[in-house]
């Protein structure tokens, strides 16, 4: 029982990171933009939050955790939206190829984040690794009374606020796409931009906004990873990139539905951590276990294409640019 709960809590924390990435990418893809820069954007969100918190904590006379939280949260949103803006400008206005631009954004984001993450402290004249303990603590704060309510309490109430925010955002995105007027227009843009255009929807504006808002949400995944998952530090490696691709996989697995992405994200978490709870695995076979989320994603992708169901296909114009006067 304890094992199961600790597996599930681990899965939820893990799932939250990719849930942010995936929900943001769903909104982006619904506009017809396949942004393969998600990993880069998550990097940007993570490093911007970390750097902002770091600057605040080192420069403020008496730093307060909650202020650090606010500063870093806003910084992460701004930086990742900016990443989305670069992508949007290149692919929408300058009509560059989406795949190539996205991959470049990933290279750029990973580079920038790891450059600063690795040397921020040194550049500020400090020693050792960067650490924003105060801010990270407020990210990880939970209500002890509730979390203490045995296994259920731990399972439901032991997380920092961003784990709940992720669910809220996913539900909001689900409502937004399914029910709201703007969401309807957005879906039409991704399915058939010429038709949306003819109906009076400003395709360019929708694509820009969806890409930037989507990127901002994706970037929160990086922020959550840095502040909560690794507790306000930085590791110069490609973990965020791997998580970013997993977020792209999650979009497919959830067949472009944000609500479905919630439990799918936790399922990915379970699949990813399952090896910890199976006895007798060698270190080698653990690595094989970690490929499970990708394998199930491929199975879903192939199954969807086999069934040819009209409802669970990728947005019809995904990956294509739109220009009105082309003839």
């Amino acid at each position: 029982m304890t094992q199961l709960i600790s597996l599930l809590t681990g899965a939820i924390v893990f799932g939250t990171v990719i849930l942010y990435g995936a929900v943001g990418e769903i909104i982006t893809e619904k506009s017809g933009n396949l942004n393969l820069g998600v990993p880069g954007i998550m990097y940007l969100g993570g490093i911007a939050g970390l750097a902002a918190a770091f600057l605040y904590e080192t420069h403020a006379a008496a730093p307060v955790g909650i202020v650090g939280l606010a500063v870093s949260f806003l910084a992460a949103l701004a930086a990742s939206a900016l990443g989305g803006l670069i992508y949007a400008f290149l692919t929408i206005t300058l009509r560059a190829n989406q795949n190539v631009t996205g991959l470049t954004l990933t290279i750029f984001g990973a580079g920038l984040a790891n450059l600063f993450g690795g040397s921020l402290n040194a550049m500020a004249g400090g020693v050792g690794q960067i650490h924003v303990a105060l801010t990270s603590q407020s990210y990880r704060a939970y209500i002890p009374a509730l979390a203490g309510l045995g296994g259920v309490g731990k399972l439901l109430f032991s997380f920092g606020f961003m784990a709940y925010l992720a669910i809220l955002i996913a539900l909001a995105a689900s409502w937004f796409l399914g029910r709201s007027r703007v969401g309807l227009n957005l879906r039409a843009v991704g399915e058939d931009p010429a038709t949306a255009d003819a109906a009076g929807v400003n395709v360019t504006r929708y694509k820009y906004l969806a890409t930037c808002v989507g990127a901002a949400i994706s970037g929160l995944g990086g922020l959550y990873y840095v502040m909560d998952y690794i507790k306000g530090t930085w590791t110069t490696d490609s973990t965020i990139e791997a998580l970013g691709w997993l977020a792209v996989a999650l979009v497919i697995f959830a067949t472009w539905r944000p609500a479905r992405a919630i439990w799918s994200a936790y399922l990915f978490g379970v699949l990813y951590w399952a090896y910890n709870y199976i006895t007798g695995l060698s270190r080698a076979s653990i690595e094989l276990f970690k490929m499970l989320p990708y394998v199930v994603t491929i199975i879903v992708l192939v199954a969807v294409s086999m069934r040819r169901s009209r409802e669970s296909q990728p947005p019809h114009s995904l990956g294509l640019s739109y220009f009105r006067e082309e003839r």
Partner: protein
Amino acid sequence: MAEEFAVRMVDVTKSFGQVLANNKVYLELRKGEILSLLGENGSGKTTLMNMLSGIYFPDAGQIYINGREVTISSPHDAYALGIGMVHQHFKLVDVLTAAENIALGLPGGAVVDRKSIAKKVREICGRYGFDVDPDKKVYDMSVSEKQTLEIVKTLYRGADILILDEPTAVLTPQETEKLFAVMRNMRSDGKSIIIITHKLAEVLAISDRVTVLRKGEYIGDMDTAKADARALTDMMVGRTVTLNIQRDQPERPQRRLEIRNLTVKDSDGVVRLDDINLDVYAGEILGVAGISGCGQKELLEAIAGLQPAVSGSSVKYRPTGPDGPAEELLGLGPRAVSDRGIRLAFVPEDRLGMGLVGSMDLADNMMLKSYRTLGKGMFTQRRQPYELAREVVRELEVVTPSIETPVRKLSGGNVQKVLVGREIAMHPSVLMSAYAVRGLDINTSYTIYRLLNEQKKAGVAVIYVGEDLDVLLQLCDRIAVLCSGRLNGVLDGRTATKEEVGYRMTAMADSGKEARV
């Protein structure tokens, strides 16, 4: 003083690259009238209307709506001015419902209020006699349902000025009548309507006035009451063109293709071609008539091996006449057909999307079907195709900067010459063509007729799928009429009348029932 004109377009000009699609066009639409915009295919009707609905932006000229000069730079602007257009290719999002398609792009509250949309849709339907299910997904709808939805959509948006682009092309006669009734209702409601068409009968039947375009130029307008088919034709084609198409008696026609029980279903399982039995003779031109989308494409593509046919179907190829050996064509596929030395030439409707490779130059396009046998081993041989391209350019007077020019950059007529030239160069025994003169000027059209006649004379079995009944009646030896995927008689091209062909296109002869598309 109330403004008399709902729309005035003055000296509107639009060009695409080198092509001048509209040259200083003038158009006026009075309030509460139905105006026909008449012109042949490619005369610039749709381009002009696209500028009114904000799809294209004019290079020059002014547009006045209700007397006020306006700039329409997006469909959104057009809609704000009360202009709604129903395009020939429906602008509907497949995966959305009817109600969602209607709500698309509209201002309003944050939430899509399905109930009030449904209510208003029913109201519109009630007033004009439409039938639309607000919750039906577009991908589940038939063609005429989609068109109805399109019209309801523009009305829902409060359009006062409606533009219908060739609305009857996809409709049965009954549906057409219903549409016309609706249009009259809308007119009495005070709406102003432009109907784009190239059918004279419709112009005379429905409209109050008619504006004629020819080759992107404004020719004139007149009250329909004062117009007759003769005068309109003159305006449309410029001068009275008696189609002096040459037609020789077939010399010793021999049965070359035997089509038996040919049935074709599309990927959704819908029957597109239903139990066709037809013979095609060498040395004659067989015309195929029908409303667009009645199985013409499927017929040709099935013979060419591009569409799978239902089992039990058969197309026998008899190279040496009815008593000679026969070869089953179905199930072979284009590759096997050519490997067996069956020279089947096919000029498809979609020239750049199927017949040619737009980004390749003339020479490379010449070897599209023959590249396998040209050259030794794994390498291509480009000398012969290059020579052939030069020959085609010379013989058919193709206007092109060079042989190395990508065919996409050529004009429509020259593209078609390249395609037909290649197909004829393979010395076919069967030559199939779909809408071979669509969008071509008169001269090029005559070149194509001449080429087809030469093939007929050389003993080729020629199939000509056409839309212009005059051409069909004056070019073809026999005319097979398709109606909703079924064969509705084969007529003698020399004795058949236009009325008879037209009637058979729309109504099955045996059952007497009206045909449905």
